[in-house]
C-alpha cells in the first residue's frame, strides 16, 4: 500500500485537510499553499529567526513598561484617578468576580508574556548558536497553543471603546503604558508575519539530531 509513496520525511500533510504534498524548498518571501484547501503551508522569510527573536524581546520589554506605567488618567470635577494595567486586572478582585481577575490578567498580560518567553527560549539559542535549547520542542508547542489566548490586541480595541464610553463624563488622558501597549501589539503582529511554523519545526528537527 505504501510502497509508491516517497520517504516519509520528504512529505508534508496539510494540517487542515490531510492532503499529502512533496516537501519542496520554498524561496524566502514566497508562500506554498495546500493544493486542495489553499491553507498556507510554508511562508519562509529571510533572516526570520533573528527578526522573531529581536521583535519578541522588544515586545517583552514593552510589556514590562505597559504593566507598571500609568495607563489612563481620568479627571472630572477636580477629582483625578489614574490606573495602570495592574489596576485594571485587579478591578475584578472583589467577591464573585474574583475568577475574572485571573482570566483578564492571564489574557492580557500573563499569556502574551509566557508566549513571548517560550518563543525566545525555543528560537533564541538556535539563532545565537546552532543547536536548540533542551526543551525547545515543548516550548515552541506551548507558544503555538497560546496564540489564540493572547488577547493584547483585543484589549486595545476594548480600551478605545471604554474611552468613548467615559469621554462624555470626564477628561481622559493617555499614559505612557497605553502607548507601550499599542507598540507591543504592533511589534507582536509584525513578529507573527515572520513566523513560519513549519520552517521553524523543520529547522529544529534538523538541528536536534
Amino acid at each position, binding site marked *: 500500500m505504501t510502497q509508491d509513496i516517497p520517504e516519509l520525511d520528504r512529505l508534508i500533510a496539510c494540517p487542515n485537510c490531510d492532503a*499529502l504534498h512533496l516537501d519542496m524548498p520554498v524561496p524566502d518571501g514566497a508562500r506554498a*499553499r495546500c493544493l486542495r484547501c*489553499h491553507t498556507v503551508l510554508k511562508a519562509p522569510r529571510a533572516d526570520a529567526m533573528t527578526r522573531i527573536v529581536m521583535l519578541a524581546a522588544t515586545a517583552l520589554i514593552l510589556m514590562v513598561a505597559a504593566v507598571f506605567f500609568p495607563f489612563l488618567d481620568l479627571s472630572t470635577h477636580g477629582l483625578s484617578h489614574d490606573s495602570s494595567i495592574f489596576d485594571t486586572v485587579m478591578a475584578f478582585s472583589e467577591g464573585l468576580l474574583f475568577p475574572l481577575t485571573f482570566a483578564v490578567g492571564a489574557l492580557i498580560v500573563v499569556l502574551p508574556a509566557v508566549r513571548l518567553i517560550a518563543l525566545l527560549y525555543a528560537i533564541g539559542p538556535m539563532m545565537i548558536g546552532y543547536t536548540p535549547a533542551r526543551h525547545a520542542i515543548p516550548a515552541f508547542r506551548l507558544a503555538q497553543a497560546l496564540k*489564540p489566548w493572547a488577547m493584547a490586541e483585543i484589549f486595545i480595541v*476594548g480600551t*478605545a471603546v471604554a474611552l468613548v464610553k*467615559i469621554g462624555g463624563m470626564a477628561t481622559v488622558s493617555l499614559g505612557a503604558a497605553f502607548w507601550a501597549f499599542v507598540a507591543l501589539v504592533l511589534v507582536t503582529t509584525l513578529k507573527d508575519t515572520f513566523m513560519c511554523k513549519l520552517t521553524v519545526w523543520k529547522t*529544529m528537527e534538523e538541528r536536534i539530531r
Partner: protein
Amino acid sequence: MMSATQTAAPDRDDGGARVQTARAAGLVACTGCGRVHRPDQTRCLRCNARLSSRDATSLQRVWAWWLAGLIAYIPANLYPMLRTTTMGHETASTIVGGVVELIDYHSYGVALIVFGASVVIPIAKFIAIAYLAYSVQFRRGKKGVLARQHLYEVVEFIGRWSMIDVFVVAILSSLVQFNFVASIHPGIAAVSFASSVAFTMLSAQSFDSRMIWDANEAVET
C-alpha cells in the same frame, strides 16, 4: 488510484486539485507540524504532539463546549454587565443596554463594534459551529467543502474578538472610582460572558477540520 502526491509549489493555486490524503495512503499526519508518520506511531517525531488520523472524540468535545457556551451565554445577556453609581444612585446595564446607551450618546460606530462583538459574533458563532459539526456528522456535505473550510477559519479567527466587552468592563471599573460622585463596578454577566466566549473558543478548537474534507474524499477516490 490517483497520482501519489502533489508538490507544494510556491504560489500555485489549482482549485479543487485531486490529492491523496495521509489517511488514504495508510499514514498518519501531525496537525501541529505537518510531518507524516507510519500509522503505528503515537507521538510526532518532530514536535512530539499526540497523533491521530482522525480524532474520534472531536465532535463530542465540540458539542460539549458548544452547549456549555450556550448555557453561559443566557445569563450573560439577562444579568447586568456594568453597575454605575452616580451621586448615590445606581443603574445597571446589560450587554444590549450598553449598546443602547452608546446609541443615545450618538456614538454609532462604537455601538456597532460592541454590538458586533458581543451579540452578532457570539450568535453567528453558535450557528456556524453547529452547522459545521452537523454537516460533518451526517455526511451531508459533498458540496461547498471549500466554503465550509473558510467558514471554519473565520470562526477560529473572529471568535476571540468577543472578549472586547469584558475588557471594556475591566477598564471602566478600574478607572471610574470616585466613590460617591461616580463609580463603576462589574456585574455578574461579565463572568458568564467571558466563560461563554472561552467555551466557544474551545469548541471551535476541538473541531477537526480534516473531517470537512473526508466526505469529499470518498467521492473522488
